């Protein structure tokens, strides 16, 4: 098997995640799809690291994981705050600027 297949899988997962971000309206599910996209990128990084025979790709994937963890903490806190004030987790309902 050609290891390029891992890259195709990563592209497919990224695309599915992007579809979820565009289609879903529950903020939590949108957030999960963003996580899926980040994970797909990590898979690509790890595969590239293997292809090029050095560990730099794995380091980048590691930093992506750290940033994703921080992002999840803040994002979920924001979702909770919005839910408390608006009683809805739908991204359509957070439209304070709309008349």
């Amino acid at each position: 098997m050609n290891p390029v297949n891992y890259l195709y899988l990563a592209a497919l997962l990224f695309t599915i995640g992007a579809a979820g971000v565009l289609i879903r309206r529950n903020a939590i599910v949108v957030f999960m799809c963003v996580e899926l996209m980040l994970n797909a990128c990590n898979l690509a990084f790890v595969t590239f690291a293997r292809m090029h025979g050095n560990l730099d790709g794995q380091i980048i994937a590691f930093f992506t994981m750290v940033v994703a963890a921080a992002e999840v903490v803040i994002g979920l806190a924001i979702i909770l705050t919005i839910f408390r004030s608006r009683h809805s987790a739908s991204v359509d309902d957070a439209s304070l600027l709309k008349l």
Partner: protein
Amino acid sequence: MTSTGEAVQFWVLAVVAVLGALATVLMRKAVHSALSLAGTMIVLAVFYLANGAYFLGIVQIVVYTGAVMMLFLFVVMLVGVTAADSLKETIRGQRLLAGLCVLGFGVLLGAGIANASLHRFDGLGQANAGGNVQGLAALIFTKYVFAFEITGALLITAAVGAMVLTHRERTERAATQRELAEARVRGGKQLPPLPAPGVYARHNAVDVPALLPDGTPAELSVNQTLRARGQVRDVSAEALADLAALEQRSEDRLERKGKKR
């Protein structure tokens, strides 16, 4: 080129990963989405291990499926009460257009990978020779040490930010029990304690409302949260139907007895 075993593993687990990802997007309930995503992440961890990223594979399981997804589930439990996703489109044609965009994007990505010259394949044998964790550590603490320090600052900021965002300052004193009782008397709506669930109904589960003398359910007897979720199980009609069936049966039997006479 990789071994046959890895190819088999890839083709089996890739299907699982894609199915999990699709389920994440397509499942209506957020809890099901979260569990599908957790499955996909575990499969990705196996792929990391197969690609020689031993440290990342373990971190993927511990951090992603262990911490991040459980945090997601936690928030789903907190928020999910009214978070049922409606399938109604608010913007007309949005789903179709999104599908088209995503399809085009996927084709672009795939074409890009297909046209890239990715013939080089060194493998990690040399890089992992001194151990994967040791190799990563050597890179993190020399070449990437500045990024590593920034990461620490980022994590602290995130922790403080989460605490600030979810903290609620109590601006007034909490009402005492006596004040609550007085307010209730003044309001005059429901002076005695609320009725218990299941009274005179045929079940005594908490989601079954008590029945009033005329057989209609007493909504007040069910927990407010269950009412908000619409999880009240109304058995009053069922009970009446059962009663009617019982009467019918007894009448039938009596009739038969009458015929015998």
